[in-house]
């Protein structure tokens, strides 16, 4: 047989092949098509067999039908939401972020004060000798464990997905009562961005420990106090949002 590159110069042969292919497409047999081109039959016959082979190689109708159903389901799932938003994924991201946040805060709060946590803060931040019975008036100075802030940025491993950033700050406010029960306020500020970046960091930031002056007045009659502490511990507005501006923070993990 001639070199194919030579054969393609034969315009009549190319036209004959094209015609035979078209006739195969409409159901004619190759032999019927070749009857019109007896002088090219020897060349075209094996080529038409190859054409038939290619037609047979198409996936079967069962495979196509099942693929059509699967792809339709997939498209139906994604058609509802614009592709850039993907709300279901965002919800998953939010759930993962909340779980991470809660877990992170539990770990954080479970640490002792000298580790920067809140656990046992009541016992250790108030000296044992600091009792109303023994003190009628005093101005104790106490050091409140530094206001911690936890910044949790979490996103699931689904990709691509928008980043869901939760910024949480936990601020302890101390009152000057002898029991010195701390109150803790959690502020959660969700922020959504569409950057397809996955990050998962847990950073705990400590700001310099504020010195809190607690004024306690204890009367002999009641043994109680009308004190109120300065809630200076919550004056840390830079406690959240990515730790921005925390030049003096130290990570003590």
């Amino acid at each position, binding site marked *: 047989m001639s070199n194919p590159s030579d054969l393609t110069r034969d315009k009549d042969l190319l036209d004959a092949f094209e015609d035979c292919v078209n006739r195969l497409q409409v159901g004619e047999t190759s032999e019927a098509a070749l009857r019109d081109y007896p002088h090219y039959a020897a060349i075209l016959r*094996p080529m038409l067999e190859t054409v038939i082979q290619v037609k047979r190689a198409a996936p079967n109708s069962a495979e196509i039908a099942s693929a059509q159903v699967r792809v339709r389901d997939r498209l139906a799932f994604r058609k509802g939401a614009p592709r850039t938003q993907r709300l279901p994924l965002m919800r998953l991201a939010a759930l993962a972020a909340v779980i991470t946040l809660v877990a992170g805060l539990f770990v954080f709060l479970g640490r002792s004060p000298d580790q920067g946590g809140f656990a046992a803060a009541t016992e250790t931040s108030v000296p044992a000798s600091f009792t109303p019975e023994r003190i009628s008036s005093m101005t104790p100075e106490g050091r409140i464990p530094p206001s911690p802030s936890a910044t949790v940025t979490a996103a699931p491993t689904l990709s691509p997905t928008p980043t869901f950033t939760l910024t949480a700050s936990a601020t302890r406010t101390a009152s000057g009562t002898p029991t010195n029960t701390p109150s803790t306020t959690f502020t959660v500020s969700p922020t959504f961005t569409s950057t397809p970046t996955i990050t998962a960091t847990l950073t705990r930031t400590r700001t310099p420990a504020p010195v809190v002056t607690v004024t306690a007045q204890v009367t002999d009659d009641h043994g109680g106090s009308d004190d109120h502490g300065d809630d200076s511990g919550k004056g840390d507005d830079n406690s959240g949002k990515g730790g921005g501006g925390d030049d003096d923070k130290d990570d003590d993990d």
Partner: protein
Amino acid sequence: MALILPEVSIEDSLLTRIRRGDQAVVGEIYEQFFSSLYQYVRLRIEDTQQAEDITAEVFLKLLGVLGTARAPREHLRGWLFQVARHEIFRHYGKHKKFPLESLEEWLPSGEDVESETIRNATIEQTRWALRRLPAEQQEVLILRFSEGLDLQATADVMGKSLSAVKSLQFRATEALRGVLGMGKGRGRE
């Protein structure tokens, strides 16, 4: 499998609705074109899951351009196949994985093999051989012989002239025949 592609006049109406941003039109296009697009992709992508992903991507792309300046203005069929073609190129660009089995492994080994087995083996051999051809040759064979696109439509999809497609399909058929070892005593090219 015989493919019935939509009439051109129907395509025109679909194109009008695409330009208007009518989302319902995507469902109709899906029903009409899925089979041919999937076949086109599947013959070039061995993995069915990946073939489905690529086919789905074509319709997602269509959804994305509804009512925009990027929406197809003419030759909807050609636009769909072009997107599929682009996605296939992207796929091969990412994975660069090709089957490594030799052709002999696909050939029936004994004289007593059932005819159905032989036929299936032949189909697999053909798919295998198709994927070993240069991309343009694969395309022209699938578009012309498997999808049943006519010369003009194939030329539109591939961005070639009619004469170029005519010549290419001839060369591609010869090449496939060579890979399949159908040319007696010729061996593979």
